[in-house]
Each structure stands twice: as C-alpha cells, then as structure tokens.
C-alpha cells in the first residue's frame, strides 16, 4: 500500500528524478525549483544533507531542467520549500531507506542496526566499509517512491535550522560567468527583436539601408510575418542597428495606452467577469456601516537585467536556455507556437537577475527559439534592451479595493465585504498566456479566455482579500476586468499587496474611529495564537507606544497578514518622517514561517520583501502617455541606498510546524504599515498608491 506522497513527489514519483550518486563521494540532487536569488538551492541542499546524512560539500544541485529534473511547474508563490522542499525531503528519506535495506542484506543485519555518517554506513559505531557509492550499483533508483519511508524527526535535523552560506553567492562576488547573459556558445549569433508594438500591429515599411548604416558592422534581418529580428556576430552592431530600427521601421495599427488608462479608477467602467464568494450578503440591521476605497497603479517587475534567452535548433531538436520560473510550462508553450513535439525540446534553467514574478524571461526565450528555427545550427542569443524590458514585460495590474464593514456597538467589524476590480494576475504561459513573439507570427494565437489564479491556489486579485480576523461574516466580490491597456501577470504576492494595504489600513481607520490603539484593536479581533504572537512580538521590538501623538510629521504604523491566509504570518511596524516627502527611518518585522531551513536566508528574503514593497509604495507606478512612459530607471525610479530604512527582523520559533515560504509575506504588511504611519504622521489619510509628493501635497491641502 502506498502512503500519500507530497504533491510534487506524487507528480514525479521515480526517485532518480530527485537523487543520484554520479561518482564516488558525490551526490546530485535534482529539483524543479530554480534559483531566482532567493537562495532556494542552498536550502534544498541542506534538506538533502540532513535526510541522506551526507555533508553539504558532497552535494551538487541540478535544477530546472526538462532532461532530468522533476516537473514542479513554476517556482512561485512562496511554495518552493513548503511543497518542493518537503517532496525532496521525502524522496531523500526513501533513498536512504532503500540503501539501509540493501546494506542490511549485504552485511547480514537489519537496516535499523545501521547508521549513516557522511554517506558511510556504520554498525555499532564502527565502519562497515559500505557507503552509498559501494551500494549504488545494486539499487535501481528508477523505482517509485512509496511514501512509507519515514522522514527524520525535526529534532534530528542538523543542517536544517542553520544559516548555511549560500552556494550561489561566491560566483556573484567574484564575477564568474554564472548568468544566462554570460553563456557564449561557439558561433553565437546575437539577436534583438524589433518589437511589434501591440497585437495586430503590422509592419508597413523597413528602411533597411538606414538601419545597416547605423549598425556600423554586418547585420542581417530575420523576419517571419510581423516578427522582425536583427542578428549578427557583432553584438555592438546588432545593438546599434536595433536602436536605429525603432525610428526606421514603420508600423500600422498601433495602439498606445493613454494617461487616463494609467489610473486604477479607469477599471471601474470596464467589462468584467463578476464573481462572489464567502458569506451571503449581509444586512446592516441599522448598525453602522464603514466604507473606504483604496487603489494602486500598475507596477513593473523592473528586473535589474533585461531578459535573455538562448536557443539552438540542430538535427531536428531544439535546446533552450532560459531564466524563467517554469521550464516545463515554457517547453509546452514553445512547442505549441513552433508546432514541435515537446519531446524534441530541452529547456535548461540558468540564473538571471531577480524576477519577482513573470517578467520578460519566457518571452525572451521564445524569441530565441523562433529565430533559432529559422537559423538551424546557429546558437541564437537574444538579450532584450532596457526599454524593451520596461515596455513589454507583463505589468502587475492596477487594482481598486473597496472595503465595506458593518460594526457592532463596540466598534468591531461583524461583517466584511472586500470588493475588487482588477485585470488578471496570471498570464503565464502555463496558464494559457501567450508568448509575446508568437503574437507577431503569421496566425497569432487567440487571446486566452478570462482567467485568474483560483482561490484553491491562493487566488490572484483575491489573494488575501479576506481578513484573517475573527469577523462572523466575510465575503469577496471580484470583478475580473477583461479589458486591459497592457498585458498583466504575476508580481510578488499578486493581489496580496493591494488587498492587505486596503484591509489593514481600514482596520487602522476603524481603530482610530473608536479611539483604540491599533495594536490592541488588532489583538481584540484575533484569537489565532500565531497571529497574536507576531503582532505582540513586533510591538515589543518597536517599543510600541499606544499614546504616541499623531500629526507631528513623525509617524508609526503597524500592519499584519498571514500570506494567502494559510502560509507564513508576518507583522511589520514602520517609523517614518514626512516633510516634503516620506523618509523611512526604521522597520521592525516579526515573522512565523514554521520550520525554518535557513534562518539567514529567510531574513534576507524578508528584508528584500520589505524594501521592494517600500519602493512600490513610495515611488513606483508605470506611467502611460501615448505608450508606456516608464521605460528606464529615470522614468521608473526605485528605492536607492540612501533611502532604505534600518530593518530589524525576528523569527518566531515554531519549528514543529510545516515550513512556509517567505518571499512574499512582507509585501502587504509593509505597504499597509507605511500607509498607516503616513496617516499617523500627517493626521490625514492617503488611500491611493504610490504615496507620491503630489498626493502628499493634495492630502495636506484637503485638510
């Protein structure tokens, strides 16, 4: 009988998809999760080190590879450790059990009389001469996991729970060729795409002579329908030609987003698929109703490097190198647009810069694949231009979140409605989204049907739309807006940031309305002990003072969320100053992520989430002005070194709880804590993000 297997292991039950012993003293572990700068491969190695009883130094991690590694879909949603890590742990436990059994046969004893020390098998404390590598020829790891093998007890874990140093960091500080951008295959052809401005735009004319003149080196044109690329051996010439092509290729049917469409308010009157879930419609029965509306504009992922993809089509087989988050879904999507059998395509993951979600990575890989098919035998390297990344990467959608609360006589909410207007948060290729280059090919694929991440997977626009607080009736009204001026998809936390911003700002407004301290008010409507623990902890860390006077230009704010209402808990306090602009001073954060594999890695992710969210809240919005007007770091500024606050983080020790991802948990609480602190500092509230200087001025003039 098979016990139940962790999801990814159930999907990839053959143990050779997870563990291999390639040569004496060496262990290879395989994972479908990919390194995005979050340190996940180090954590996976720690998990395997413990479960197999081998030193970290023996372990090589192979990740994101359709040839060998398991298919785990996307590395997204803060799920790598919670699901992928647990699957790897179980796979290693199964492998360990098989080897112990085999060692027992060889040594004429029971497997449970043996122990393993750094890969070597011991009996009664003495070496048996057997190890994983002497035994491996007798064991067929293509067998299926059974789920019967027991994982180690948490108390017996040695590497898990320690801040093991990141395996990927040395290459990054020594300038090694570790990024996809650094791959140089023999005979590499550099390629840039002259992007179709929008679906349906058609090439009217190309001034090839002018473009060649600007190139100052040999270039060629590759064209398929309205997909146009400039290629050549000399990257400098290809770059110069592509820059010139912007002015020398004329397009028909160009549509450009307008300044009106830039604002979230534009979404209100658009066609939408309307959904509702949660409690039945509430009746206020004469009780007080409280209603507030919060908005956020479009954001860019704004990865520090533009996307890059490589492809080689040789002997009827296509190999693709990509920094995308899901190599298997990309393989399926590329197979479809190129009409190739997926078995003829291999996709390898190579590190790129941090993506924080669905950026241009998949599209750049598809660009390379499209060109490679027209140039068999030549390795094609596509690197997007900076403005190309800003203009064509999928944006995270603008959102409107309207909160309606019905209050009891004590001022506590008894009924909560969160109504959301948002375009989709998921146009990943694996969710039916189109690869950008395919839209320019003859016979472009149709628009995908309206879709967002289902609530079973955490929701897209509805993520964290229900407050975790003890409110008898909660419901969500979701308007999935089907008309969007730009392509939208997943960014760190999806709808969680705007939803938590809205509900946690509203909770502060309710506390203020009743003259209650925001910390005490939250505790008064929360019985969940893990929620209470992070709120109480962060208040202690920040020396929260319930009597701090507001409206002085110095402000403090608190906010809390449990990511997806089922993952990690985090509470954040922000202290800031407001004069002409907002200056963040200090941030405190308490987080409960269950069993922590690598505490420093977790803290690094939490810090990153706090800083990125602060950057979104204070500075970021994609501007539209007859096209995307945010196309470089001056028109889309992000938080700078002189603008980051000091950050203090504590992890709550709950190591007997399942491990929970942390990449996204701080985005919402940080945004709301900043919103609440600004309100405290000014004595007036701003409900629209980002909190720009113009909005500060307008808020102050309004009073």
């Amino acid at each position, binding site marked *: 009988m098979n016990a139940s297997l962790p999801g990814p292991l159930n999907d990839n039950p053959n143990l050779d998809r997870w563990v291999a012993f390639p040569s004496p003293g060496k262990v290879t572990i395989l994972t479908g999760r990919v390194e995005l700068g979050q340190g996940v491969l180090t954590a996976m190695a720690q998990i395997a080190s413990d479960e197999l009883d081998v030193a970290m130094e023996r372990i090589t991690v192979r990740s994101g590879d359709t040839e060998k590694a398991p298919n785990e879909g996307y590395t997204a949603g803060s799920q790598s450790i919670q699901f992928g890590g647990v699957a790897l742990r179980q796979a290693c436990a199964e492998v360990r059990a098989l080897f112990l059994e085999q060692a027992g046969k060889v040594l004429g004893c029971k497997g449970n009389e043996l122990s393993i020390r750094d890969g070597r098998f011991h009996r009664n404390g003495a070496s048996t001469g057997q190890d994983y590598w002497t035994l491996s020829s007798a064991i067929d790891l293509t067998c299926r996991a059974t789920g019967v093998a027991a994982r180690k007890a948490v108390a017996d874990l040695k590497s898990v729970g320690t801040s093991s*140093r990141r395996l*990927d960091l040395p290459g990054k500080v020594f300038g090694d060729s570790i990024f996809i*951008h650094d791959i140089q295959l023999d005979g590499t052809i550099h390629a840039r795409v002259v992007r179709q401005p929008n679906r349906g735009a058609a090439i009217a004319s190309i001034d090839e002579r002018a473009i060649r003149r600007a190139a100052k080196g040999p270039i060629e044109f590759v064209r398929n329908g309205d997909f146009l690329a400039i290629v050549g051996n000399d990257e400098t010439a290809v770059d110069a030609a592509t820059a010139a092509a912007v002015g020398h290729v004329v397009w028909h049917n160009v549509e450009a987003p307008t300044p009106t469409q830039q604002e979230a308010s534009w979404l209100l009157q658009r066609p939408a698929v309307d959904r509702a879930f949660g409690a039945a419609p509430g009746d206020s029965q004469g009780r007080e109703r409280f209603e507030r509306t919060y908005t956020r504009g479009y954001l860019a992922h704004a990865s*520090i490097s*533009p996307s890059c993809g490589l492809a080689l089509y040789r002997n009827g087989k296509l190999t693709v190198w990509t920094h995308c988050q899901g190599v298997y879904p990309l393989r399926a999507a590329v197979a479809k647009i190129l009409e190739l059998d997926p078995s003829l395509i291999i996709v390898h993951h190579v590190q790129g810069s941090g993506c924080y979600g669905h950026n241009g990575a998949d599209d750049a890989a598809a660009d390379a694949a499209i060109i490679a098919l027209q140039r068999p035998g030549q390795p094609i390297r596509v690197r997007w231009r900076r403005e190309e990344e800003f203009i064509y990467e999928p944006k995270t959608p603008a959102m409107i979140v309207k909160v309606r609360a019905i209050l009891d006589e004590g001022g506590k909410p008894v009924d909560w409605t969160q109504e959301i207007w948002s375009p989709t948060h998921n146009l990943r290729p694996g969710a039916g989204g189109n690869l950008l280059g395919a839209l320019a090919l003859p016979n472009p694929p149709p628009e995908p049907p309206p879709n967002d991440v289902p609530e079973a997977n955490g929701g897209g626009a509805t993520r964290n739309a229900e407050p975790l607080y003890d409110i008898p009736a909660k419901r969500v009204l979701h308007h999935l807006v089907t008309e969007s001026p730009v392509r939208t998809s997943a960014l760190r936390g999806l709808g969680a940031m705007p939803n938590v911003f809205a509900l946690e700002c509203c909770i502060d407004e309710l506390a203020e309305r009743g003259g209650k301290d925001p910390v005490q008010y939250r505790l008064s409507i929360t019985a969940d002990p893990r929620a209470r623990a992070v709120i109480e902890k962060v208040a202690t860390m920040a020396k929260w003072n319930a009597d701090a006077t507001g409206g002085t230009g110095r402000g403090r704010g608190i906010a809390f969320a449990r990511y997806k209402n089922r993952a990690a808990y985090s509470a954040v306090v922000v202290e800031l100053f407001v004069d002409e602009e907002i200056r963040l001073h200090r941030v405190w954060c308490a987080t409960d992520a269950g069993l922590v594999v690598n505490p420093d890695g977790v803290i690094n992710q939490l*810090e990153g989430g706090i*800083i990125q969210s602060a950057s979104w809240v204070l500075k970021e919005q994609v501007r539209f002005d007859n096209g995307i007007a945010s196309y470089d770091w001056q028109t889309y500024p992000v938080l700078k*070194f002189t603008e980051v606050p000091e950050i203090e983080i504590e992890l709550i020790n709950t190591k007997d709880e399942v491990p929970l991802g942390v990449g996204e948990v701080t985005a919402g609480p940080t945004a709301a804590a900043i919103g609440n602190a600004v309100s405290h500092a000014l004595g007036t509230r701003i409900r629209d993000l980002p909190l720009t200087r113009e909005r500060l001025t307008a808020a102050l003039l309004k009073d």
Partner: protein
Amino acid sequence: MSRKFEFSVNGSAVSVSLDNEETPLLDVLRNSLGLKGTRFGCGLEQCGCCMVLIDGAPEKCCTKPVSSVAGKKIVTVEGLGDASHPHPLQQAFLDEQAGQCGYCLAGILISAKALLDKNPKPSRAEIAQALDSNICRCGSHNRILRAVEKAAAVMRAGAER
C-alpha cells in the same frame, strides 16, 4: 578598417582591434576579452551594473567608447580578487551574505572599492551616498552597507599592521 586600441585591464596590457571605435568598453570587456564579471544592465549609464575603475575612478562603461580609454588602466571585479585570494570587500560580502540575485554586485563592489580607496573610514551615510549610483532591486541594501563597513574596518586593521 580596423583600429588597434591599447590599455590595461586588471594589470595586464591588452590590445584589441576593432572596426568601430565607438564600441562600448563593456562590449570589449565581455565579448572581446571574455571578462563576463562586468554586467550589462541598461546600456544607459543609469544602473551601475557595468561599473569599472578607469584610472582609479568608478565609471559606468556601457556607453563609454573604447577609444576614450586608450592608454588607461581599467580594473574590473575580476581584478579585485578570486576565490583563493578574495579582496576584503568580496570576503565581507560573503561573510554578510550580502546579495540575492547578485546581478548588481560586481558593479557595487567596484563602487565600494573606489570609495574605500579615497575614504578608508566612511560613515554609513557616506557609503550609501557612494552606492546611490548603483541599483539593487532585490533589497539587499542593508547587508551591502554592513559588508562595506566591515571591509573598511578589516582594511584599516591590515594597513595598521
């Protein structure tokens, strides 16, 4: 008609022949010399991924014509140190685990090196100021600031010995 350009990179004399004298130094480093540590981030001299030292001064090189560095001394991240002989800055970045995706780090290490060459005991604010010409998108800022402070202390202690 190709022209020859001579300069030094990380202490070694180099000579490259190029048809286009406007070829950016970054392309020469990465494509002609195979030094991939200096990264392409924007091609607009905005993000700092391509920061190198030119005669000791930190400069973005993604649009800097190779002709403008003839006869000059270039130092890239590969010139700071390697795994067997890390520069104190590189060691401090590892000790502080200062980085996430790491794409910005080569440029940041160069900016930090330029700062410490000029000012061996910078304040936290001075370090932040010096690094404002570099963008970090992952949010590793505080770790990076701590690492530079730490490296400065190590280098001062080394200089006193």
